[in-house]
């Protein structure tokens, strides 16, 4: 009898397969299903794309109206030539899916609060946050409106959706993108709602900082009292160089927002006594403060050719796969080229054969909190205008991998969703019941803005297109072949009174409600100005004579704008190469102002020998954030350390983290007032510290760190900053680390540690458009493809690619064209 060995062998075999067929927990994360993952016919090996892969294909589908030819160039950029507009978007969807499927799916899952579904209960706090903020709610509003009132956009998004799904339907299980195999889940069908969710996510990324900032500012005000708060978080920016040049007269305001009668004690000077609560949920990291951008256009009067040049470089998180995907779309109605979002049809930042456009973030405050008083624990009614008003309940079901569903019942009020209530709190919400009102909750035709910009022929078309834009507010720059340049700040902006919405507002009656939205005509706009250029770099768009409040000054970085305007004003005979040099310029205008201000307070004779050496090195630095600049590292550490010495005693006593004042506050204080009272350390009773004392402390502290860095050979700016482009799962092996690149915060080349110029574009509007551009990534989202990170080194070196924007026959014959994908009716 061999029964015993048979049973034993069978048990061992089955156990082995079982172990290799599950995700094993290892140090906080989980392995892939190892047997499946290693299988050369199904696992990750299948994603090891041949380095000389052939992308030629002929695809038959019954979903097309006509024929589509796609030519791929040697950078894997598709040039789509379609006989019908909808076919072009079908193919754009198909190609986005072919090269970026996992990313599209993942990003929309984040937006929809569905990470727990694939990653488990660890991600529950992020999912709850997005659900309660109303991300899905907002996407649903847009979807309903477009389906009911906008047949052209519906057809566009539907064609795009069909394209994504056509790719998905032919995808064999073994060809699933790498990340699905790594994380062990399956893609699902694309829907129009996912496109709107993706656009919601962009609204969050660009305006959602208020969701955490408003709470922090409220808590900071409570802690410091309004008078000190207003000093440290002042909205005064003396060195502001706004988007609309100073002295420009604004049209008569049609709205006159009035400050509520009781604002002084019920709002500004209000002190909340709400307690810190125990079972708080973690909030996800707030959108990056430096989410911003540069854009500008120079008129023909300033260029060598006599034609305008337009530049745009959005500064966003640096990720792999990149947020951007380059594409050319040519149909009988239009021809356009630029960066598109995998997840959305059309080109987002680019040009067509008549004009070019670009965007930067407006930074305006469009998200507010209103404090609610519920009648009882059912949260079925809340107090409003002297009566109980009924809530409706919105049910959000969060599926959790390997665990039971979590259900959120969100009370909906006329303000918006009650984001924080008895069932959901974070450390900053401090037990309050808060409804969130956000312009992104309103149905929006944002997709149509890009659809129309892709087809715009002139300034009027551009204005019509951007008039549809609601959220996130943007500075739309434009230049035409016929010589117009213009910039307009556009979005659905609240007509605010001074400081309205900086803090949580009382929600028990109408007095703190939004009193109106600013009409399109009153949004800042300038066309063909005398100075020969228009520009924006996220600074305040207008000076204080503008009739409406923009939001807290911390939302408007001050220095890049000064740099851009100063340089553009001095330039003439400009070429496309000059514009590339400006986009990658490393001059540190902040240090140029802050260093001499700081030096006024440095007593060299009191410094240690090591500190003296560091300060001398800092003073010899040429003020450029070049990769090898050691002076910049020294300046940064000293400045941060001095700031810390000045503010720490005021802020560190708070039980919850408070916002730190912006750097301009200290610089401007140093420049005008040497007896800055906040400098005194409140913890020392018998001594009044002056700024000089704090500067001394700051420099000595920084010197300790700097000496250590010098020993490790990490004093050069690039080594210290260690810029990286991270894979969306934050896996180092799939990322690019320690890139040799300069720049930084306040620099036109705004590259920080993991954030920076995400699509650099320069468009010279000559008869045959001369355009350059690139993004830090590659056209393929597959970590196993040579096209995964192709552009990163070129980007880090500050170089550009010439963009091929050609009619079909010329492109077909171009030396850079390598592959042909045909789409035909089945």
């Amino acid at each position, binding site marked *: *009898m*061999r*029964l015993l*060995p*048979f049973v034993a*062998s*069978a048990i*061992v*075999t089955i156990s*082995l*397969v079982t172990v*290799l*067929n599950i995700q094993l927990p290892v140090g906080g994360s989980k*392995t892939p299903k*190892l*047997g*499946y993952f*290693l*299988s*050369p*016919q*199904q*696992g*990750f*090996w*299948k*994603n*090891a*794309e*041949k*380095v*000389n892969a052939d992308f030629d294909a002929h695809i038959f589908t019954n979903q097309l109206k006509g024929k589509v030819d796609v030519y791929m160039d040697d950078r894997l950029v598709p040039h789509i030539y379609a006989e019908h507009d909808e076919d072009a978007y079908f193919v754009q969807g198909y190609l986005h899916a072919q090269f970026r499927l996992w990313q599209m799916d993942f990003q929309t899952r984040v937006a929809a609060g569905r990470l727990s579904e694939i990653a488990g209960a660890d991600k529950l706090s992020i999912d709850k946050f997005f659900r309660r903020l109303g991300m899905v709610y907002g996407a649903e509003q847009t979807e309903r409106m477009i389906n009911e009132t906008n047949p052209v956009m519906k057809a566009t998004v539907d064609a795009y959706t069909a394209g994504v799904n056509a790719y998905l339907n032919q995808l*064999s*299980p*073994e*060809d699933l993108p*790498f990340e699905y195999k*790594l994380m062990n889940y399956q893609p699902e069908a694309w829907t129009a709602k996912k496109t709107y969710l993706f656009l919601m996510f962009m609204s969050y990324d660009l305006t959602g900082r208020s969701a955490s900032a408003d709470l922090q500012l409220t808590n900071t005000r409570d802690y410091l009292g309004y008078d000190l708060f207003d000093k440290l978080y002042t909205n005064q920016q003396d060195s502001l160089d706004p988007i609309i040049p100073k002295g420009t007269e604004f049209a008569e305001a049609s709205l006159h927002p009035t400050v509520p009668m009781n604002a002084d004690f019920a709002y500004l000077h209000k002190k909340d006594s709400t307690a810190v609560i125990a079972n708080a949920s973690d909030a996800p990291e707030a959108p990056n403060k430096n989410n911003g951008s540069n854009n500008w256009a120079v008129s023909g009067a300033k260029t060598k050719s006599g034609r305008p040049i337009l530049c745009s470089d959005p500064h966003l998180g640096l990720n792999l796969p990149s947020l951007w995907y380059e594409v050319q779309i040519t149909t009988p109605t239009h021809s356009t080229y630029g960066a598109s979002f995998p997840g959305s049809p059309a080109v987002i930042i680019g040009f067509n054969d008549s004009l070019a456009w670009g965007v930067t973030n407006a930074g305006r405050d469009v998200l507010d909190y209103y404090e609610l008083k519920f009648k009882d624990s059912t949260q079925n009614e809340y107090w409003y205008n002297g009566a109980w008003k009924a809530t409706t309940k919105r049910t959000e079901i969060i599926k959790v991998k390997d665990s039971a569903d979590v259900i959120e019942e969100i009370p909906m009020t006329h303000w918006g969703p009650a984001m924080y209530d008895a069932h959901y709190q974070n450390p900053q919400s401090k037990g309050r019941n808060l409804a969130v009102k956000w312009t992104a909750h309103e149905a929006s035709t944002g997709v149509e803005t890009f659809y129309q910009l892709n087809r715009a022929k002139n300034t009027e078309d551009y204005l019509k297109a951007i008039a549809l834009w609601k959220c996130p507010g943007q500075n739309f720059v434009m230049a035409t072949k016929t010589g117009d340049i213009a910039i307009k700040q556009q979005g659905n902006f609240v007509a605010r009174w001074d400081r309205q919405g900086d803090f949580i507002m009382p929600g028990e009656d109408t007095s703190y409600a939004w009193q109106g939205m600013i009409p399109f005509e009153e949004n800042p706009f300038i066309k063909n100005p005398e100075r020969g250029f228009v520009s924006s770099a996220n600074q305040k768009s207008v000076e204080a004579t503008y009739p409406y409040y923009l939001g807290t000054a911390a939302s408007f970085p001050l220095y890049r704008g000064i740099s851009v305007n100063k340089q553009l004003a001095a330039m003439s005979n400009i070429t496309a190469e000059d514009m590339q040099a400006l986009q990658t310029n490393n001059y540190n205008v902040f240090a140029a102002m802050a260093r001499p201000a700081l030096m006024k307070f440095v007593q060299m004779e009191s410094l240690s020998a090591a500190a003296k050496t560091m300060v001398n090195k800092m003073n010899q630095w040429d003020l450029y954030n070049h990769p090898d600049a050691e002076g910049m590292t020294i300046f940064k550490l000293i400045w941060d350390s001095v700031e810390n010495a000045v503010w720490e005693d005021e802020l560190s006593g708070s039980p919850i983290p408070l916002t730190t004042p912006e750097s301009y506050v200290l610089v401007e204080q140093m420049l005008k007032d040497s007896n800055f009272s906040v400098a005194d350390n409140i913890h020392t009773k018998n001594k009044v510290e002056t700024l000089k004392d704090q500067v001394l402390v700051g420099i000595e502290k920084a010197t300790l760190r700097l000496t250590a860095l010098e020993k490790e050979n990490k004093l050069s700016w690039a080594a210290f900053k260690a810029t990286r482009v991270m894979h969306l799962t934050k*896996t*180092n*092996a*799939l990322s690019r680390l320690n890139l040799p690149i300069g720049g930084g915060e306040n620099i036109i080349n705004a590259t920080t540690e993991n954030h920076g110029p995400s699509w650099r574009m320069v468009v010279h509007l000559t008869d045959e458009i001369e355009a350059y551009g690139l993004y830090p990534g590659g056209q393929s989202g597959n*970590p*196993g*493809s*040579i096209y*995964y990170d192709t552009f990163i080194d070129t980007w880090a070196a500050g170089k550009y690619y010439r963009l091929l924007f050609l009619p079909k026959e010329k492109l077909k014959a171009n030396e850079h064209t390598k592959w042909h994908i045909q789409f035909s009716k089945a």
Partner: protein
Amino acid sequence: MKNNTFKIPVSILLSSMACFAIGLYGALPWWSFMVTNFIVAIAIPQKPWVAFLTGALGVGAIWAGLATGMDMANNHLLSSKVATILPLNGSYVLLIVITGLVGFLLGGMSSLTASYLRKA
């Protein structure tokens, strides 16, 4: 088949070919080759340890071979990344060895079990 020296290469070859063929069907479970190995070992009865070795070599060779081929065509681009995630110190050679070893073990165990069944 009575000639043992002939039986060994034939079962190795059969295991390999069946493993490759069934692996072409991506919708089937990744371990489907264990079923084909099982059938091969039933069809060609051998001593248990010989069955183990032939099944192990059949699958191990095809797994390691396919992985090596794909890896070379890819200039080790993906394998180097995966060998950092897993973590194998970035060694694609080690990753191929482990891939082969997993195939070897599973293939062998499947054939071993079958050989015992045959004699059970």
